[in-house]
């Protein structure tokens, strides 16, 4: 089982991080939409935001680690793509990093605007760095807009991978799912 990425496909760490984060980001989107509809007496009124914040911080840590890992690994070969596909995929893939970073930081700024730290599942807490009156409101608006934008880009990204898999019939999706050809069982 290949740990690092190669020209032929992604290694285990990249693949694991990718799918864990995909589930995490989509899950937090759904959780975020749902948790704001809860009434005061719902048993999840407090728990849902706690989970949302905690998973969000863990995804933020994963994002930073993943970016470093990406820079430290060889890129799988994309010479089979048409020039517009290569350009579009670079924009989306590299663009995901600042997009997700801004999404997660804006969320962090909502909860820490009053100086309070964020508790991550009771394991550790992230201190507040910026306290400003009304920051929770402006950060909140940014967080909401970026959440929808992230899901839109993710949907585009998923649709493109399915196009490559089912229409172009190449290994674009497979190399993120099962890695290089030689390591698939």
């Amino acid at each position, binding site marked *: 089982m290949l740990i690092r990425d190669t020209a032929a496909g992604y290694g285990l760490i990249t693949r694991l991080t990718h799918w864990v984060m995909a589930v995490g980001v989509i899950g937090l989107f759904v959780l975020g939409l749902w948790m704001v509809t809860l009434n005061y007496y719902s048993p999840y009124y407090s728990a849902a935001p706690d989970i949302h914040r905690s998973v969000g911080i863990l995804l933020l840590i994963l994002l930073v680690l993943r970016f470093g890992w990406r820079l430290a690994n060889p890129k799988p070969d994309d010479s089979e793509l048409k020039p517009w596909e290569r350009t579009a995929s670079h924009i989306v893939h590299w663009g995901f990093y600042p997009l997700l970073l801004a999404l997660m930081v804006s969320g962090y700024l*909502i909860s820490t605007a009053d100086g309070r730290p964020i508790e991550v599942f009771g394991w550790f807490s992230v201190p507040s760095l910026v306290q400003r009156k009304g920051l*929770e409101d402006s950060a909140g608006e940014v967080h909401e807009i970026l959440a929808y934008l992230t899901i839109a880009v993710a949907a585009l990204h998923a649709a493109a991978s399915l196009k490559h898999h089912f229409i172009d019939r190449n290994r674009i999706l497979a190399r993120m799912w099962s890695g290089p050809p030689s390591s698939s069982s």
Partner: protein
Amino acid sequence: MKLSPFSLAFVAGTLAVAAPASAADFVIDTAKAHASINFRVKHLGYSWLTGRFDDFSGTFTYDDAKPEASKVKVEISTDSVNSNHAERDKHLRSKDFLDTANHPKAVFESTAVKMSGDKATIVGNLTLHGVTKEIEIAAEPVGGGEDPWGGFRQGFVGTTTLPLKDFGIDFDLGPASQEVELTLNVEGIRQ
């Protein structure tokens, strides 16, 4: 005694200036924050949750000889709600509660003052969350007089209880939290 037109005018002028001597206009000293609008509401019936509105302004006219002629007007920036918790304050500003985006100001304007000894009941219209209702504020003077810096100040404290549903705020906080108690501490500087 024969009064010349001049002396008649002189006396009339003096009386006109002298007559409303005890009635005065005051501006609430929000510049130096010698006024506050505080609220409290029960949390689940287990404790008092307190907060305040940080930004507001107001004026009052007070006549210590005729307190029933007093008037007061206060304008509150609803998005200045501050319960010492960023996430809660964000929720309070949302459509679930104050909907500050659509209702940025709450206004109280008095229409009458009824005295009972030293205590006053200020009757007036409160516009909150887009709903205007007549309310009564139980008020009493705290003190007044000259300050060391050349000004003249008058202070009051007023309390009132607002049923949230009366103003269209119907987010269910439970049976113990149907009403919010407001305390207004006001110090005005005579103009």
